C-alpha cells in the first residue's frame, strides 16, 4: 500500500492516540492487506496455522499462489518474529499429494467421485443410522484447528440438526483438563491474563512445558524478559531436561505423576511459612473437596472402570480443613514420592510466594495430558489463589494451548460432547437459550451428553456408533492405544468419513474422503491462548475440487433436511456465510463475559482479546480497573462463580494418586510422548515441507545416558520400544535436545510411519473429570535391535 510519509506519520499519531484510548487501531487500513508491492506481490494477514501462540504472519500472493510468508511486524503477539514452522508456512499447502477429488471406497479401493455423489452418500448413511439406531449412533470428531465458524456450524449441525451430542474435538487430547479445572475454579474457562504478563513477571514457573519447542515465540518473550532484567528467575519443573530448561535457574526433575505431591507440598510451605495473602483468601476464595478416589477410564476385560460416565461430587469445606489436608504433604513426604530434594521444594515455594515478586505459571501438555489432569491444574491455581497472585500484570496461572484455535473454537464455541456455545446440554436453560437463537422448537436439543474422544473410538469399535466423520485432525494416528481403534474402524458396518487436505493414517481407513481447503484457501478465524480472536481473508483458491469444512458441513446438513439451520439473508451480511454465522454466534457470549466485537472489526485489527466491551479489549479478567465486569470497590470478582459462591474462586483439595500403569520388571521404563519444534501434531503438514522434514526426518527415542549405557545403546543405534499394546522401532538419541531423567524415555508422535507411530505404545487411560487422555505416562521396555 502506498502511503506518503506525511500521511503515514499522521496515521501513526492517530493510531497511537486511539490505542491510548483503548479503541482498536488500524482503522486506516494499515493492516497491510491492501495493495501490491513493487514485485507484484499482494500481502495479506493471517494467524499462523500451527500452535496456540497465534503469531501473526504476512502472506505474499502472486498469480494465485503463495510466494512468501513472513512474521507480521504489526502483530502484538510476535512482533515480526516466527519460529521455524512459521517461516515455512508458505509451503504447507503445496505438498504434491494434495487431495483434489472426493474419494469413495468401492470394491476395496478408493474411486474418485463427484461432490454430489459423495455428499449424497454421507447424508443417506447418516440419515439411515439416525432412523434405525437414533442420534447416539452418529458422530463427528472435530478439532481445535477448525475455524470459529466451522466449529459453530458443526455444533449447529450435530446438536441442532441431528439432535446428537456425539461431537467432540481433538482438544480432548490437548487441554480438556485445563478447561474443566478453570470451570471448577473460576466458573469460566480460559486464562485471566494475557501475553503482556511475560513483560511483567519476575518469576516464571514452567510446569512440564517445553515452551522453547512448543510455544517458541512465547518462550522468546520469556527469555527476553530474563535477559533484560537480572532479577528475573525461571523455575522449570518436568520429567526431563529440555531446551526450555536452558534458561532455568532452578531445575526440578520429578518422577512422573508426582507433580501432584510437589504442588501440594509447595502449598504446605506457603501456609506454614506465612506466605498466604490472608486478605485475598478471606475475601475472594472458597474451599472445595471432591471425591478422592477416582477411576482411570480404562477398560478392564471389556468393562469400563467407571471413568466414562464419572461425575464428581463436591462439597464445601473451610480453610482449616484445607490446611490439615496439605499438612500431610511435607517437603520430605513429597520428596520421597517425587525424588525432588525437600530443600528444593521449600526454595521454589518461597520464590513463588515472595510478595515482592510477580509469579507467572505456564503449562500445557505435561499437566493436561494426565490421568489426574484436573487435579494438577487445580493444585497450581491453589498456589496462585493462596498468594493472591492472579489477575494482574505478571501474576497468574497461564494455561497455554497447543492448537491455533483450541480456545477460539473448541472451548469458546464449545464443540464438546456436553457443551453448547453457552453452557452445557444438561442444563434446560442453556438448551432453551440455544434453541431460541437457533430458531428451533423447544426440546430439540438432546439433554444427554455424547461420547467423548476415547469413548467415541470405543463406541465405534463396539459398533454403537455407526457413522463417524473426522474433520481437521488425524484421529487414527492421534488416539492413544491407536492400534486397537484402527482395527475397530476396519470392522464391518462402520461408516467413516474423513475430511483432509492430504492423505493420512485416518483417510486410509475411510469409506469417504473429502478433499479440504486449508488455512488461507478459505476465510477463517482463530482464537489464541490469550483470548485473542484473529481473522483472515481467503488468499488463494484451493486446489482441484477441494472445499472448506464449512461448505462440507452445510452441504451435508442441507441434504439431511437441516438446511434451515444455515438459511440467512446473506445480503445483510455482505454475502458472507462466515459473517452471518459469526454475528449469530456472538449473541451467545454477549453480556456473559465473552463479548466479541462485530465481524467487520476483526477484519481490520490484529485480533482483540475478549471480552470486548464498548470496543475495548480486556487484558486481565476478574480485576477491578481492567475487566468491565468488575465494579469499583470489588477489587477482584470471579463472576463466573456469582451464583455458586458469590464470586469467589475455589481452592480444591486434591491428593496425590498413583498412575494406572507404572514401570515394573517386564516393562521397566517410563514412556513419555510429545512433540518437536519442527513438526506439528501428526506431521501431515510439516512433513510435507522439505526443510522441516530434513531437519527431523523421523521419530527418535531420547534416552537417559545411564539407561542407554546399561542397555549397551549408543546414539544412532536402532532400538525397539515395546509396551503392553504395541511396539515401534526407532533410532536412539542420547544427550540430544531432550535429556530424560533416569528411568524415562521420550519419543515424538509426528511420524506417520506405522513402525514408528508413538500411539502404538500409549495407554488409553484418561482423567475421569475432564476425560482427557494421558499420553505422557505408561510403562515400556527398550532393547537394541
Amino acid at each position: 500500500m502506498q502511503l506518503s510519509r506525511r500521511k503515514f506519520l499522521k496515521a501513526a499519531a492517530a493510531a497511537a492516540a486511539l490505542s491510548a484510548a483503548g479503541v482498536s487501531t488500524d482503522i486506516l487500513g494499515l493492516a497491510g492487506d491492501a495493495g501490491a508491492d513493487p514485485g507484484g506481490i499482494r500481502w495479506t494477514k493471517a494467524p499462523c496455522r500451527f500452535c496456540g501462540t497465534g503469531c501473526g504472519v504476512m502472506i505474499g500472493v502472486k498469480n494465485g499462489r503463495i510466494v512468501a510468508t513472513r512474521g507480521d511486524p504489526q502483530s502484538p503477539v510476535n512482533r515480526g518474529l516466527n519460529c521455524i514452522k512459521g517461516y515455512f508456512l508458505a509451503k504447507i499447502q503445496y505438498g504434491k499429494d494434495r487431495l483434489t477429488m472426493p474419494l469413495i471406497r468401492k470394491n476395496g479401493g478408493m474411486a474418485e467421485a463427484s461432490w454430489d455423489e459423495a455428499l449424497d452418500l454421507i447424508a443417506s448413511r447418516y440419515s439411515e443410522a439416525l432412523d434405525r439406531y437414533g442420534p447416539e449412533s452418529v458422530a463427528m470428531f472435530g478439532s481445535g484447528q477448525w475455524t470459529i465458524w466451522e466449529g459453530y456450524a458443526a455444533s449447529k449441525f450435530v446438536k441442532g440438526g441431528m439432535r446428537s451430542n456425539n461431537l467432540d474435538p481433538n482438544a480432548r487430547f490437548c487441554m480438556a483438563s485445563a478447561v474443566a479445572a478453570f470451570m471448577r475454579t473460576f466458573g469460566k474457562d480460559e486464562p485471566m491474563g494475557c501475553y503482556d504478563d511475560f513483560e511483567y513477571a519476575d518469576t516464571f514457573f514452567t510446569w512440564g512445558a517445553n515452551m522453547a519447542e512448543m510455544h517458541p515465540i512465547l518462550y522468546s518473550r520469556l527469555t527476553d524478559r530474563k535477559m533484560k532484567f537480572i532479577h528475573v528467575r525461571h523455575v522449570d519443573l518436568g520429567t526431563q531436561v529440555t531446551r526450555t530448561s536452558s534458561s532455568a535457574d532452578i531445575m526440578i526433575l520429578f518422577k512422573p505423576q508426582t507433580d501432584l505431591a510437589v504442588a501440594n507440598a509447595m502449598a504446605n510451605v506457603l501456609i506454614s511459612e506465612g506466605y498466604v495473602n490472608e486478605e485475598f483468601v478471606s475475601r475472594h476464595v472458597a474451599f472445595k473437596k471432591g471425591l478422592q478416589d477416582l477411576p482411570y477410564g480404562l477398560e478392564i476385560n471389556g468393562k469400563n472402570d467407571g471413568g466414562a460416565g464419572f461425575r464428581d461430587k463436591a462439597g464445601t469445606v473451610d480453610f482449616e480443613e484445607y490446611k490439615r489436608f496439605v499438612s500431610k504433604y511435607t517437603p520430605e513426604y513429597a520428596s520421597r514420592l517425587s525424588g525432588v530434594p525437600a530443600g528444593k521444594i521449600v526454595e521454589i515455594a518461597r520464590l513463588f510466594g515472595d510478595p515482592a515478586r510477580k509469579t507467572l505459571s505456564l503449562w500445557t501438555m505435561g499437566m493436561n495430558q494426565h490421568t489426574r489432569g484436573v487435579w494438577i491444574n487445580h493444585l497450581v491455581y491453589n498456589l496462585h489463589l493462596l498468594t493472591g497472585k492472579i489477575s494482574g500484570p505478571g501474576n497468574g496461572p497461564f494455561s497455554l494451548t497447543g492448537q491455533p484455535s483450541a480456545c477460539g473454537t473448541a472451548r469458546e464455541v464449545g464443540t464438546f460432547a456436553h457443551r453448547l456455545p453457552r453452557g452445557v446440554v444438561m442444563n434446560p436453560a442453556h438448551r432453551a437459550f440455544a434453541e431460541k437463537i437457533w430458531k428451533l422448537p423447544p426440546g430439540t436439543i438432546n439433554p444427554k451428553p455424547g461420547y467423548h474422544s476415547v469413548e467415541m473410538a470405543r463406541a465405534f469399535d463396539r459398533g454403537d456408533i455407526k457413522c463417524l466423520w473426522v474433520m481437521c485432525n488425524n484421529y487414527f494416528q492421534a488416539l492413544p492405544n491407536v492400534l486397537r481403534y484402527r482395527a475397530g474402524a476396519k470392522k464391518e458396518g462402520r461408516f467413516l468419513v474423513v475430511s483432509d487436505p492430504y492423505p493420512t493414517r485416518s483417510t486410509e481407513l475411510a469409506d469417504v474422503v473429502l478433499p479440504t481447503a486449508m488455512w488461507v484457501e478459505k476465510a477463517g478465524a482463530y482464537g489464541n491462548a490469550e483470548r485473542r480472536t484473529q481473522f483472515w481473508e481467503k488468499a488463494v483458491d484451493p486446489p482441484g475440487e477441494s472445499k472448506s469444512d464449512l461448505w462440507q458441513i452445510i452441504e451435508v446438513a442441507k441434504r439431511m433436511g437441516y438446511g434451515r439451520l444455515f438459511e440467512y439473508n446473506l445480503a445483510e451480511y455482505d454475502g458472507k456465510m462466515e459473517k452471518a454465522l459469526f454475528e449469530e454466534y456472538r449473541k451467545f457470549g454477549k453480556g456473559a463475559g465473552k463479548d466479541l466485537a462485530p465481524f467487520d472489526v476483526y477484519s481490520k485489527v490484529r485480533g482483540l482479546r475478549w471480552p470486548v466491551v464498548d470496543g475495548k479489549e480486556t487484558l486481565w479478567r476478574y480485576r477491578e480497573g481492567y475487566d468491565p465486569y468488575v465494579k469499583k470497590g470489588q477489587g477482584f470478582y470471579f463472576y463466573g462463580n456469582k451464583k455458586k459462591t458469590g464470586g469467589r474462586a475455589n481452592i480444591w483439595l486434591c491428593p496425590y494418586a498413583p498412575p494406572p500403569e507404572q514401570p515394573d520388571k517386564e516393562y521397566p521404563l517410563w514412556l513419555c510422548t510429545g512433540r518437536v519444534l519442527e513438526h506439528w501434531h501428526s506431521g501431515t503438514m510439516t512433513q510435507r515441507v522439505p526443510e522441516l522434514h530434513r531437519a527431523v526426518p523421523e521419530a527418535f527415542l531420547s534416552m537417559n545416558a545411564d539407561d542407554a549405557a546399561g542397555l549397551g545403546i549408543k546414539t544412532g543405534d536402532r532400538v525397539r520400544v515395546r509396551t503392553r499394546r504395541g511396539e515401534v522401532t526407532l533410532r536412539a538419541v542420547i544427550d540430544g535436545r531432550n535429556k530424560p531423567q533416569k528411568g524415562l524415555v521420550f519419543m515424538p508422535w509426528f511420524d506417520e510411519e506405522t513402525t514408528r507411530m508413538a500411539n502404538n505404545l500409549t495407554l488409553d487411560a484418561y482423567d475421569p473429570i475432564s476425560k482427557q487422555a494421558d499420553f505422557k505416562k505408561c510403562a515400556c521396555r527398550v532393547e537394541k535391535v
Partner: protein
Amino acid sequence: MSKRSINILLAVFILVLSVSVYGCITIRKQAATAGGAILIPGTLEGAPPFIPHDVEDEQACPDCHRLGENEAVITPHPDRVNCVQCHITQDMSVKPFVENTF
C-alpha cells in the same frame, strides 16, 4: 567521511533495521558448506539461514556467532538466545517425504 562510506553505512543501517523489523530475515541466500559435510540449497525468501554444519551443543552457538570466532557468520541479533528456534540443520541424505510444488 566520503559519500561512498556514508552510503555503505546507510545500507548497513537499513539492513540491520530490516532484520530487526522482520525477525530472522535472510540477508543473502545461503549456499555455504562449512565443516565440509552438508550442502544446503537456497532457503526460502524471508526464512532464517540454515545451520550448515553439525551441531554438538545447541547452547553453544553464541560462542562463535556472537563475535565471529572460527570464521563464523556474526549474528545480527545477539539478543536472541534460542538460536535453534529459527535456525535448523538439514540432512540432505534424507529421502523427500513427498515432493513440494511451492
